[in-house]
């Protein structure tokens, strides 16, 4: 901004604003003040022209620029998510679970009653990853993802930051897409944290060698690591699908804790439904049913049909709830 004009305005300001109006001088002074304004108005076009060059991109490079801008917002969103103390705490907690399981197994061993998968960990550290994921994928991982997803829009609305993001303008569809990506990345991070923690704990505490799959086939260790990747990726997609459910819930309210609770209750509710035998026909349509299908990667051959079906269910959930989130958020009045 021009320093000359700053000088000008500071000198005239006290005259217009701070001097009490006196008979006979007030009108003239005000006239002068308005005159100033219109003079300044004349210089406006110049200021705007400078503005376009200084801070804002040219419109000509709109499409690559738009992609870069979206990446920047995604980066900002991720930075926010992974800098937030609450989220860091959840990731640390998740990372602790495989360690705790490993220590418990090492300390107490296992007897005849324990499932084979548990005893297998003692024989092969790599199995700890699968064991940890199978234990966490039903509640703790969905909980972590539900917190981030339920908080995504409702939290911003509650804090009032949503109105500033939208006037920035982040764009509603764009912001929602960025939030969805953020939730997906957090879901992947959460699964990866469990997998990596499981791998490291397993490597440190137990012998590592060729992996016995559920089908009884034994595969080399690298194949086992590959399967860890598949399992992690599959679980992350499942968590992302839940994340979009949470995102949709999050657009419905301004109370983040309500959105988080609703998301987690959805998970628990659908697990209860899935556990009732009489409601068996409903099971294939529940999100929770398919989370544990990652064990398809531990069969020989890999149960691509079951996992593929799971991925389709995840995609269907993501599509429907993503659309609901968009339908709600793109037209919602932001009154917070």
């Amino acid at each position, binding site marked *: 901004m021009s320093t000359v004009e700053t000088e000008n305005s500071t000198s005239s300001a006290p005259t217009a604003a701070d001097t009490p109006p006196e008979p006979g001088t007030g009108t003239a002074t005000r006239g002068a003040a308005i005159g100033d304004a219109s003079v300044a108005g004349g210089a406006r076009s110049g200021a705007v022209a400078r503005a376009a060059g200084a801070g804002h991109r040219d419109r000509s490079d709109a499409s690559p620029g738009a992609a870069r801008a979206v990446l920047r917002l995604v980066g900002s969103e991720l930075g926010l998510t992974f800098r937030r103390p609450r989220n860091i705490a959840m990731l640390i907690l998740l990372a602790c679970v495989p360690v705790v399981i490993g220590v418990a197994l090492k300390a107490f061993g296992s007897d005849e009653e324990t499932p*084979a998968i548990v005893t297998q960990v003692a024989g092969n550290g790599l199995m700890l990853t*699968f064991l940890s994921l199978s234990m966490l994928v039903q509640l703790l991982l969905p909980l972590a993802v539900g917190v981030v997803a339920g908080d995504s829009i409702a939290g911003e609305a509650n804090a009032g930051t949503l109105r500033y993001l939208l006037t920035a303008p982040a764009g509603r569809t764009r912001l929602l897409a960025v939030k969805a990506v953020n939730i997906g990345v957090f879901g992947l991070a959460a699964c990866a944290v469990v997998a990596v923690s499981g791998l490291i704990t397993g490597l440190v505490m137990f012998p590592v060698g060729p992996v*016995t799959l559920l089908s*009884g086939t034994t595969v080399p260790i690298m194949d086992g690591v590959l399967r860890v990747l598949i399992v992690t990726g599959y679980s992350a997609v499942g968590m992302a699908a839940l994340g979009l459910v949470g995102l949709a819930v999050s657009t419905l309210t301004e109370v983040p804790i309500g959105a988080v609770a609703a998301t987690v209750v959805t998970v628990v509710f659908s697990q209860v439904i899935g556990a009732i*035998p009489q409601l068996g*026909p409903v099971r294939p349509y529940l999100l929770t049913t398919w989370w544990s299908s990652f*064990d398809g990667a531990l069969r020989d051959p890999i149960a691509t049909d079951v996992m593929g079906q799971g991925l389709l269910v995840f995609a269907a959930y993501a599509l*429907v709830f993503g659309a609901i989130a968009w339908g709600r958020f*793109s037209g919602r009045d932001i009154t917070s």
Partner: protein
Amino acid sequence: MQSTWRRARAVRWAVPVAAFVVVGAAVGAGPVIAAVQGDPALPDRTAAQLLAEVAKTAQHQQPPAMSGTVVETASLGLPSLPLPSGTSSSPLSLLSGSHTLKVWYGGDGRLRLALPGQMSETDVISDGKGSAWLWESATNTVTRFTLPEGVKGDKGKEAEAAHTALPTATTPQDLADRLLKAADESTAVTVENGQHIAGRAAYQLVLTPKDSTSLVDRVTLALDGETYIPLRVQIFAKGAAEPAFEVGFTQVSFSAPAPENFAFTPPAGAKVKEQKPEAAKPGEPWSKDGAAGHAAPGAEAARAGARTHGSGWGTVAEVPFSLADLSKQQNGPRGGGDPAQMIESVLKSAKQVSGTWGSGKVITTKLVSVLLTDDGRLFAGAVTPEALVQAAGRK
């Protein structure tokens, strides 16, 4: 402007609605599309023609190599079974709900069945060289069966079975005629065309019992239109639109599966058991008969006292049985839960009945009725409870 906002709102909500419709259509239309994409309609066949074709194929050709997914769905109307967790791949769990079984068949007696469970799997592998394995990942055990020489290949076995059953049948046509004739007394047999199962065009034999006491409305058997491999069996209870029991392929492929499927090496650290040839009954763990699954421990103990009443669809089996005996048998053959506990929970829903013969409890499911008399007899059959009571009175 106002209308613009309204229109915008309508458009916005149209998107989730459309998404829902698309998903719903994909779920609903999947089978339809599969059916439409299926083979063109098959030529019409009478029951006799169809059976003749089946017999001819069975006699002259080995069943083709194939793999697929079989889904078994039982809604027998049993009270929910208190299955212990972790036994989802246990054979007992097949009694309720829906289960998936994977099948690989490579010809020459090479077969693999896999029953996937939650973080577990039960496999039966027959390598075609005289060895078969039962692998149970939940217990980390391998049972190795050495098959007797004679039953190495399925082809030989089936042909042999057919000949034993009807030793005088010489031509497939003859065989079909005899079968139909035998069935005619109790059963009406018809053929439905135009079925599509797992994307294959199929014929469907419909067997309708003539016996009025039977709980079974009809049994359908779908046969692949090309290979005559059975693709699906459904049992419909009277008065029910959905089958009470169904087992069928949801996906099938008639290309040769990878040979690795039929090789098995017991993994390091697994418990390995050897089984004598005479005890080798690889089909046993997948026994589909609910009543047999329940009564097995007790029934084995007292097989001598068993007899049957009636014939055909109305057959009633009678075995000596007491709950006290059962309670002693703590663990089932596969460790899949406590049978006594299961029976007890089933008995909770039982109805008290009495007659000239004494009194007892009747358990009715969609397909099977069971009568436990207080004097220690068990009557079971796919018949109405009244028929059981009658049988009990017959002494």
